[in-house]
């Protein structure tokens, strides 16, 4: 970098140079891939554009009224509820395992590794793994036969009443480790002598959890809750790879992707994305405000 010879300049000139040179690329990328799409998305959502024709017409709020009046578009929210409920199970499990693995346990690192590992796996691989798991005479059916529950086997991915439970289950399997590792980190930052003091006072494990651990990780719990909500609404990989939204497993994002890239209804897809974005922002704001109230 000697040819720049910036070192010969005065520090004030250098300052301006370095501020500009170092921020121009990140800012350009930020604008092009974070803000410009949002602006364009709002614009497209008021049009009937198909994504490739030269011209498009403004149609006002037509796309929006369609989303909220046509049950076909609206029912994707009901699918989100399955994922939303599942995230509570996921966080409960994560919290339970993070708590017991913060204390003395045999094989601690082994269990830590195994519980976290699924989160690191390739999304497509997980989709296939669970196709195999749920398919007729697949892993789950055979396991149920082995323990004598054979008569309860189902078409796990063929029955519209069960499919979303199956898919949400796969999602819990995939993401539990993420919550777990975050909780583990938060719990391990609690000073050890707090536990020692409570041990002397005769507190049991539950009381320690209730009065020491839980209050110290409230913030991180709230953060995970918000990630859970936006995660539930934006569920995509697993249902797309496993079922492509068939049998009543259509999620918001699959719907949007289909509309935009399969059926060329880019205006409508953009309106759906705007609604999705609004929900996520609203939830985030509500959470920020309630969190501020507690501090």
């Amino acid at each position: 970098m000697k040819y720049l010879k910036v070192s010969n300049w005065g520090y004030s000139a250098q300052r301006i140079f370095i501020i500009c040179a170092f921020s121009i690329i990140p800012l350009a990328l930020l604008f092009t891939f974070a803000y410009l799409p949002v602006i364009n998305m709002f614009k497209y959502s008021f049009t009937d554009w198909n994504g490739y024709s030269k011209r498009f017409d403004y149609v006002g709020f037509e796309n929006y009224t369609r989303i909220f009046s046509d049950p076909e578009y609206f029912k994707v929210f009901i699918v989100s509820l399955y994922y939303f409920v599942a995230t509570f199970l996921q966080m409960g499990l994560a919290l339970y395992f993070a708590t017991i693995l913060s204390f003395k346990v045999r094989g601690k690192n082994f269990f830590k590794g195994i519980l976290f590992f699924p989160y690191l796996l390739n999304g497509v691989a997980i989709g296939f793994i669970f196709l195999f798991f749920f398919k007729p005479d697949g892993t789950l059916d055979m396991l149920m036969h082995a323990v004598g529950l054979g008569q309860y086997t189902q078409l796990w991915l063929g029955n519209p009443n069960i499919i979303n439970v199956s898919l949400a289950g796969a999602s819990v399997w995939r993401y539990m480790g993420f919550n777990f590792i975050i909780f583990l980190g938060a719990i391990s930052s609690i000073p050890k002598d707090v536990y020692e003091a409570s041990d002397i006072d005769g507190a049991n494990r539950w009381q320690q959890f209730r009065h020491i651990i839980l209050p110290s990780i409230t913030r991180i719990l709230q953060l995970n809750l918000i990630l859970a909500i936006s995660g539930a609404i934006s569920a995509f990989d697993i249902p797309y790879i496993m079922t492509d939204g068939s049998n009543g497993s259509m999620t918001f994002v699959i719907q949007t992707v289909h509309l935009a890239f399969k059926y060329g209804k880019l205006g409508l897809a953009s309106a759906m994305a705007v609604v999705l974005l609004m929900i996520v922002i609203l939830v985030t704001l509500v959470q920020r405000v309630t969190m501020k109230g507690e501090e």
Partner: protein
Amino acid sequence: MTQLKYTLASVVKYASLILAAFIALLPIVVILFASLKTNAEYASSSPLAPPANWLNFANYVKAFVDGNMLVGFKNTIIILVISIIGATLTGSMIAYVLDRFKFKGKKIMVAAFLLATLIPSVTTQVATFQIINALDLFNTRWAAIVMYLGTDIIAVYIFLQFLGSISSALDESAMLDGASYFTIYWKIILPLLKPAIVTVIIVKGVNIYNDFYTPFLYMPKDSLQVISTALFKFKGPFGSQWEVISAGIMIAIIPTMIIFLLLQKYIYNGFAQGSVK
């Protein structure tokens, strides 16, 4: 009595851990079993049954060759290396400017980066697609690279956090020796950011390796497929040949497994830091 209660609690604790480990491992282990079975053996045996021959790698060869996974690995590595180097440089540069200098518009810049985290990238995919198209990047590796560089702001946060803990007295003493701001960044800040860089490499590396929809939407061309999209294609030609699909799955997750075993400690730290935004 208390002794009994203590034992019972401990039984529950270990039973739940073993059950959880079983549930976490079983879906993967059956895939490993299936991947080592011959076609006839797969058809006649239960998924829970181990393979007759643990060294039957025929399916792996078939998956790797017919599934074109070498192309997938090549593209994944190219994209991974360029994106990570780029993200480390741009992320640390902007963090250096934001942490070390006071200037007009700095607050707006920080706010702009913060606000962007509120936008889930899946929601803006449709509009992003048009931009990639307009930039003539569709069906090139650069489509994925610029998006991995641009949309992820976590790196900036991690660097900012670390920079806050590096004393600016170091910068000042370097300035007394006549070092330029660039030299300070390159020779002092960057080397001290090493733990943060490792964190960024891990968090971003995992995301990029496992990402499916970016390459799927933006680089559909066969010669540009990455591991995720190469594996996704198994759905067609291998349809019900689960022993071959299973081998493909194992090929895709074995690198993750090796890296996890080698870097466990760093990965835990990386995620703990990467998540607290």
